[in-house]
């Protein structure tokens, strides 16, 4: 009987170890990057993501749309109004009855308040504005929390993170929870914490969103990637942000 109990406890511990990453073991993708890449991120004049932030600063005060209104006309000084915003996203938007990520919020602001066309996913302007807004939260901990309204989407994200998919039949969790720190070909597997988005990825030679990164991973396991803005993509973003709660925002990050 005692042997059985010990075996059950051991199995439970192993499952926990392979399941979720303990808060103390959580590490940003920054810690898995090489010293040159880290140095690039640390130096604001060498970090190419800062070019996007600079562009975002220009866009912030540019009047757009039929309403002839700029972001600054409503939100004022981004250093006060946008501080601590990126750490809360995705948030639940009651009028759409679904969560919105930061890009989605910017585009909703454009259509609702500026009478402008939404910016295309992964367009330079949308990434620049997102980077500029997220940059105002650099150094602040992620505070996204599940609540009653978000719960179904959070559950979906959780389920998608653990669902095997693609021809390689792999779930996100199998790499990023169970095998982080090991190598996938030449690259170290990070823990998949979205702390630095939009990131400047050297492979892309440009800024890119979390959704682009997710699509990349899905193509990697030979699954059909979610469309930009798809409910599944937002649900995964939400799950990842809750999973990284308490970690510090680094936008704009530099990644290999």
């Amino acid at each position, binding site marked *: 009987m005692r042997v059985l109990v010990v075996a059950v406890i051991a199995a439970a511990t192993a499952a926990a170890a392979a399941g979720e990453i303990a808060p103390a073991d959580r590490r940003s993708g920054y810690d898995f990057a090489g010293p040159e890449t880290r140095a690039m991120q640390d130096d604001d*004049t*060498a970090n*190419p993501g800062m070019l996007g932030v600079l562009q975002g600063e220009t866009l912030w005060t540019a009047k757009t749309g039929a309403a002839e209104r700029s972001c600054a006309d409503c939100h004022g000084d981004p250093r006060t109004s946008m501080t601590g915003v990126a750490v809360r996203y995705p948030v639940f938007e009651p009028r759409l009855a679904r969560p919105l990520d930061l890009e989605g919020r910017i585009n909703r602001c454009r259509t609702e308040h500026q009478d402008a066309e939404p910016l295309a996913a992964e367009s330079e302007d949308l990434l620049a504005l997102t980077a500029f807004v997220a940059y105002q939260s650099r150094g602040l901990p992620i505070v996204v929390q599940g609540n009653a309204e978000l719960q179904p989407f959070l559950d979906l994200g959780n389920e998608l993170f653990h669902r095997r998919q693609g021809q390689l039949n792999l779930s996100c969790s199998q790499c990023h929870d169970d095998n982080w720190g090991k190598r996938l070909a030449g690259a170290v597997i990070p823990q998949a914490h979205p702390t630095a988005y939009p990131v400047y990825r050297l492979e892309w*030679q440009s800024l890119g969103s979390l959704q682009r990164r997710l699509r990349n991973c899905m193509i990697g396991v030979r699954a059909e990637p979610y469309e930009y803005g798809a409910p599944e993509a937002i649900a995964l973003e939400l799950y990842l942000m809750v999973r990284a709660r308490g970690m510090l925002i680094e936008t704009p990050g530099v990644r290999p």
Partner: protein
Amino acid sequence: MARVLINLPAEAKRGEIIEIKTLIAHPMETGYRLGPTGVTIPRDIINRFVCTYNGEEVFRAELFPAIAANPFIAFFTVATESGEIAFSWTDDHGETQTEVRQITVE
């Protein structure tokens, strides 16, 4: 106008070796890639970078298609006197962008 980040000390001692770091937004299209319709995307790179210190050239670089987007160029020079340090990037269209920064040397 492309976005530019330049980092150099605002003040330096005479004879001091200073590091200058520059970053400019540019796609650096190689001319070897195919677009979505199978047509070659024409080459569009910055091919020349020059830095002058009070009109005197202190650093020059020729750039080629294997250089990544948003080229970052860092180099050293000796702070000789107060004045202007000018940076200019020339692209394949023959257009030159110039940025000027001041330095005070004591």
